[in-house]
C-alpha cells in the first residue's frame, strides 16, 4: 500500500481529520474503494467459514437417522443462521467486494461516485452481521428459517426472529445505499469513449444487480418491519386471529427473494464472462446477447416470485402464470451458457486455476439450472418443493454457481489486488477437492428429496432408507471444508512471496490490467480514453489483413492512445489528482444503526442514543469536505 501522508490542515472543531494511509485506523477511516473492497472480501470470507461450520454441524446431525448431535432447538437456529449467513453475509458482500474493487478500475474511474457513502455501506454491513450474530448470546439466534414464514416467525418465543428482522433491515440499508452508489458510478463515471456497450460484462452485470437491489430491498424492508412490529408491538400484519394473512409475508419475502437470487448469481456470471475470454484468448462470444440476457433476467426476475409458493394454493391460474414465467426466464439463462461455450470453441484454452473454477461454474450451474426447470413443472413441484431436491437445486446454483464463480474471481484478480499470485498447484488441489466434495454433498440430495426427505428437519426415521446418501453428503461436506482450508493455506502462503507483479500477468482484456498491481490510490496516472470493447486487448493486439492476431509493436500505435490528463477537478491544475480524504464519519453514522436496533429490543432510551449517533455522524459527514 502507498505510504503517503499528506501534511494536513487541522480541523478546528471536533475531531482531527484522519490522515494516515497505513495502520489499523487507516483501514477504519478509508474511503478508497479498493480498500473497502478488500474489507468486504475479508469479512465475507470470515462469515463463509462461520456459515460453513454451521453447515458441518447440520450435516453431522443428519449423517445418520434419529440422531441427537444437536437438539431440535439448536438445529433450527443452525439452519436458519446458515441460510442467513450464506445469502446476506457471504455471497452478497463477496460480490460487493468485487464490485467495489473492480468497477471503478474497469470503467477507468478513480473511485466510486460517493466514497464516504461506500465506507458507510461496508460498516453498516459489518455492524448488521455482528448484530445478528450477537443474538446467540442475547436470548437465542434466529430460528424461523432464513425465509422466516409467519405465523411461526411471529409466534416464536425466543428473541431470535426479532434480531433477524432488525439485523436484515440494517444490512438492507447497507446494500441499498451501496446499490445507488455503484449504479451512479457505472452510469456516470465512465472514462471518455466508454459507451455502455463498451463496458465489460462484469460491469453490466454489476449495474443490473445494483438496480435489482435498489428495487427489491425496499419490499423486504417493509416485510421485515411488519414482522418486527408484530413481534415487538403486537400489531396484526400476520395475525390470523385479527384477520391478518400469513401469505402476505410470503409475497413480500419472495418479491424480494426472487430478484435476490439473481443478485446472488449475476456477479459470478459477470466474473465468468471476464475469465473465460482471457484464458481462451478469444473475446466473449455474443457480448451483446450476454448483456441483454442479463438485463432480461433482471426484468423477468421480478415476475416469477410465486414459483416459491406453488404449494400454497394460489389456484391453477396463478400457478400456471408463474410456471410459464419461470420457464421463460430459463431462456436468457441458456443463452448465456451457450455463449460461454461459444467463447471456448476454437479458443486456446489454458487451465489456470481461475479457468478451472470458471469451467466448474458452467458445469455445476447447468445442473442447477436444469433442476430449476424441473421445478417449473408445477404439478411435480408439489412433490419437489420443501424437500432436499430443492436444497440440491439451489446449492448447485449458489455454490456450484455463485461460489465457484467468486473463487474464479479470487484466483484471477488476486495478483492485481495483492501483487502476488496464488499458487497454481495448491489452487488446482483447492478446485478439485471442492468440486468433488461439492458434488458428493449435493448430488445425492436430488435423490434424497425425491425419496421423501423434507427440508428443515432435525432428523428422519431409520425406516425411510435415507441414511446412506445422507452419510455420503456429510462426507462431501467435510471435503468442502478441507478445500476451503486448502484455499486459506494458499492465501496465507501467497503473502510470503514478494509483491512483484506486472500490471497484466494474464494478458487480459479489461482496463484494470492497465494500471499497476496493486493499483495506486488514484488508480490511473492518466484516465484512459476508450475506443472499443476490450480496450486493453486492442491496445496490445491488432488484426492483420490475413486475419492473424499480432501484438502491436511497443512504442508504436500504443503511444498514440490518448489518455486524459486528469482535469476532473475543473481546476486546470495540470496533473494534480484530488482523491477523497479518509473520514471517521461513515463509521460513526453506521454505528448508530445497531444501537437503535439494540434499543428497539432492550431499552427505548438506547434508540434515542442511536438516533443521536446517526445524526452526529451524518452532520459531521456533510459538514466535512470530501477532500482536504
Amino acid at each position, binding site marked *: 500500500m502507498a505510504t503517503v501522508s499528506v501534511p494536513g490542515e487541522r480541523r478546528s472543531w471536533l475531531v482531527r481529520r484522519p490522515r494516515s494511509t497505513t495502520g489499523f485506523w487507516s483501514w477504519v477511516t478509508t474511503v478508497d474503494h479498493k480498500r473497502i473492497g478488500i474489507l468486504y472480501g475479508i469479512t465475507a470470507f470470515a462469515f463463509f467459514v462461520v456459515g460453513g461450520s454451521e453447515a458441518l454441524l447440520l450435516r453431522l446431525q443428519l449423517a445418520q437417522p434419529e440422531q441427537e448431535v444437536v437438539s431440535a432447538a439448536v438445529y433450527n437456529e443452525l439452519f436458519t443462521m446458515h441460510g442467513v449467513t450464506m445469502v446476506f453475509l457471504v455471497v452478497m458482500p463477496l460480490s460487493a467486494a468485487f464490485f467495489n474493487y473492480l468497477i471503478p478500475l474497469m470503467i477507468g474511474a478513480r473511485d466510486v461516485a460517493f466514497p464516504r457513502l461506500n465506507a458507510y455501506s461496508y460498516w453498516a454491513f459489518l455492524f448488521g452481521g455482528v448484530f445478528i450474530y450477537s443474538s446467540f448470546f442475547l436470548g437465542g439466534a434466529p430460528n424461523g428459517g432464513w425465509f422466516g414464514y409467519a405465523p411461526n416467525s411471529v409466534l416464536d418465543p425466543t428473541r431470535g426472529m426479532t434480531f433477524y428482522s432488525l439485523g436484515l433491515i440494517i444490512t438492507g440499508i447497507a446494500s441499498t445505499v451501496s446499490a445507488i452508489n455503484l449504479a451512479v458510478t457505472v452510469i456516470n463515471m465512465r472514462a471518455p469513449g466508454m459507451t455502455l456497450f463498451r463496458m465489460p460484462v462484469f460491469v453490466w452485470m454489476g449495474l443490473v444487480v445494483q438496480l435489482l437491489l435498489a428495487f427489491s430491498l425496499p419490499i423486504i424492508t417493509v416485510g421485515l418491519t411488519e414482522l418486527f412490529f408484530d413481534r415487538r408491538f403486537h400489531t396484526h400484519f400476520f395475525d*390470523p386471529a385479527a384477520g391478518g394473512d400469513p401469505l402476505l409475508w410470503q409475497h413480500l419475502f419472495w418479491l424480494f427473494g426472487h430478484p435476490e437470487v439473481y443478485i446472488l448469481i449475476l456477479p459470478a456470471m459477470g466474473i465468468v464472462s471476464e475469465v473465460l475470454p482471457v484464458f481462451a484468448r478469444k473475446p466473449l462470444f455474443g457480448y451483446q446477447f450476454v448483456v441483454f440476457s442479463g438485463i432480461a433476467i433482471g426484468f423477468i426476475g421480478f415476475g416469477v416470485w410465486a414459483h416459491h409458493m406453488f404449494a400454497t394454493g394460489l*389456484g391453477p391460474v396463478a400457478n400456471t402464470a408463474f410456471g410459464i414465467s419461470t420457464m421463460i426466464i430459463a*431462456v436468457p439463462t441458456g*443463452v448465456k451458457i451457450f455463449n460461454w461455450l461459444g467463447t*471456448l470453441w476454437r479458443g486456446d484454452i489454458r487451465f489456470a486455476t481461475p479457468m478451472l473454477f470458471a469451467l466448474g461454474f458452467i458445469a455445476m450451474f447447468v445442473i442447477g439450472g436444469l433442476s430449476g426447470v424441473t421445478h417449473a413443472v408445477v*404439478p411435480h413441484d408439489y412433490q419437489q418443493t420443501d424437500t432436499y431436491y430443492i436444497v440440491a437445486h439451489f446449492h448447485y446454483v449458489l455454490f456450484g454457481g455463485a461460489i465457484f464463480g467468486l473463487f474464479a474471481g479470487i484466483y484471477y484478480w488476486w495478483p492485481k489486488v495483492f501483487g502476488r499470485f496464488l499458487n497454481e498447484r495448491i489452487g488446482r488441489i483447492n478446485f478439485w477437492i471442492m468440486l468433488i466434495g461439492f458434488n458428493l454433498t449435493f448430488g445425492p440430495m436430488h435423490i434424497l428429496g*425425491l425419496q421423501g426427505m423434507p427440508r428443515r428437519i432435525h432428523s428422519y426415521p431409520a425406516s425411510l432408507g435415507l441414511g446412506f446418501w445422507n452419510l455420503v453428503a456429510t462426507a462431501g461436506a467435510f471435503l468442502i471444508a478441507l478445500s476451503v482450508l486448502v484455499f486459506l493455506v494458499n492465501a496465507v502462503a501467497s503473502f510470503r512471496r514478494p509483491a512483484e507483479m506486472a500490471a497484466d500477468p494474464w494478458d487480459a482484456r479489461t482496463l484494470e490490467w492497465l494500471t499497476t498491481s496493486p493499483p495506486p490510490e488514484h488508480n490511473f496516472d492518466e484516465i484512459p480514453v476508450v475506443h472499443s470493447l476490450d480496450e486493453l486487448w486492442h491496445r496490445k493486439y491488432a488484426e492483420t489483413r490475413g486475419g492473424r492476431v499480432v501484438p502491436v509493436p511497443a512504442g508504436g500505435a500504443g503511444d498514440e492512445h490518448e489518455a486524459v490528463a486528469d482535469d476532473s477537478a475543473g481546476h486546470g491544475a495540470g496533473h494534480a489528482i484530488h482523491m477523497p480524504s479518509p473520514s471517521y464519519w461513515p463509521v460513526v453514522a453506521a454505528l448508530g444503526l445497531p444501537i437503535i436496533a439494540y434499543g428497539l429490543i432492550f431499552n427505548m432510551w438506547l434508540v434515542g442514543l442511536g438516533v443521536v449517533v446517526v445524526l452526529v455522524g451524518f452532520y459531521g459527514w456533510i459538514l466535512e469536505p470530501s477532500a482536504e
Partner: protein
Amino acid sequence: MNARGSTTKVNRKALAVVWMIAAGVLLAACAPNATQSALEPAGENAEKANSLFLPVFWVAVAIFVIVEGALLFFAIRYRHRKGRDTIPPQVHGNTRLEIAWTILPAVILAGVAVPTVATIFELARDPGPEALEVTVLGHQWWWEFDYPEEGVNVPNELHVPTGRPVHLTMCSVGVGYENQLAPSECQGDEPVPITLGNSVIHSFWAPELFGTQDVFPTYARTLTFAADEPGVYEGQCKEFCGLSHAYMRFVVVAHSPAEFDQWVADQQRPAGSIEGAAAEGLRVFVEAGPAGCTQCHSVNGLEHANGEEIPGSLDAPNLSHFASRDCFAGCIFENTDENLRRWLDDPPAMKPGSWMPDYNLTSEEIDRLIAFLNTLE
C-alpha cells in the same frame, strides 16, 4: 508465471467426475425400500405428477449430456498445446446461432408447458359428490382427521378406501395471539374448538399418493387424491412449523372398500365402561395432573362404572380405539408398551416442544394408564 495446466490430468479427473455422477444416478434408481418416495406413485394424483416429470427429466438428462459434453469436448479439443502460441481468430459472435439457441430452448419449454398446464388444472378439479370428505386439521405437531359424514375423528392415521377419490379440506389450528376458530370450511357441526399449540403453516404430504398442499390458519385448502391399492403410505409435514416439524408424521391406510366400511363401523363403536384392572387406569386417566387427561384428550363414549359419560376435549389427539393404532405422538413412535412408558414419563423430553406437559406420573400410574389404553380396541 506459468499459466499452463496439466491437460491429461484434466481429462482423467474430468472423466472420473462424470463416472461418479453417472454411478450416482444409477444407484438412485435402485432405491432401497423407500416408503415415502415420489418415484413410487401409488395413486392417481402422484402418478400424474410423476408421468409429467419423467419425460421432462429425460429431456433434461439429454440437455445435460449435450451441454456438459460440449463443455468437456471444447475444453479438451481446444486446450493450449505447447509450442503453439498463436492467438486464435477473435470471433465475436454469430447472430443466427443466437437466434437458434434462443428459439430452440423456448420451443422445448413450450412443449413442456402444455402438459404442465393441463395437469395443473386437472389436479385442481373438484372430485364431485362421490368423494369421501375428510377434514384435516394441522396442529403443532400432529395431524387430526375428521370424517364429518361418518362421525369419526382420528389422529395420525388417514384411513381411506381404495379406488374412490378422497377430498381433503385442510386448516391449521391452534392458539395464536388470541383464541380463534378455524375457517368455516373446516368447521364441523360443533365449532372446532380452541386447540393447543400455535396456529402456524403446515404442509400435508404423502408423496406416494399426492404432492403437497400447504395448510393455513386463515383459509381452508383442498386436495383430492385416490389410492390404487390397499397399503400403508407414509407422509409428514413439509412446511417448517417449529421445534417438532420433523416429528409431525402420519400414515395413509388404504383399505379395500369393504374393509374400510368395517373400519368406520369399528371407529363408531363407543368405548363404554371399563372393567377390571384397566379401571384403575381409567381413574388415572380422569384424575392425572390438574384436571385429568380428559382436559385435552377424549375417548368417544367412555363411561364411568355408573354409566355416566366422561367428557373430553379435541385439543389433543383423540384416544378412542387407541390400541387399534400402530403409532402415536404424531406417528413418530410405534404403539408399544415400552414407547408408551417413555412417552408418559416425560413427553417434552421425547418430542421437542411438546404441548403435552410432564405430569410427573409415578411408574405405577403409568403402568395403569397403559393397561387402560390397551383396552381401547
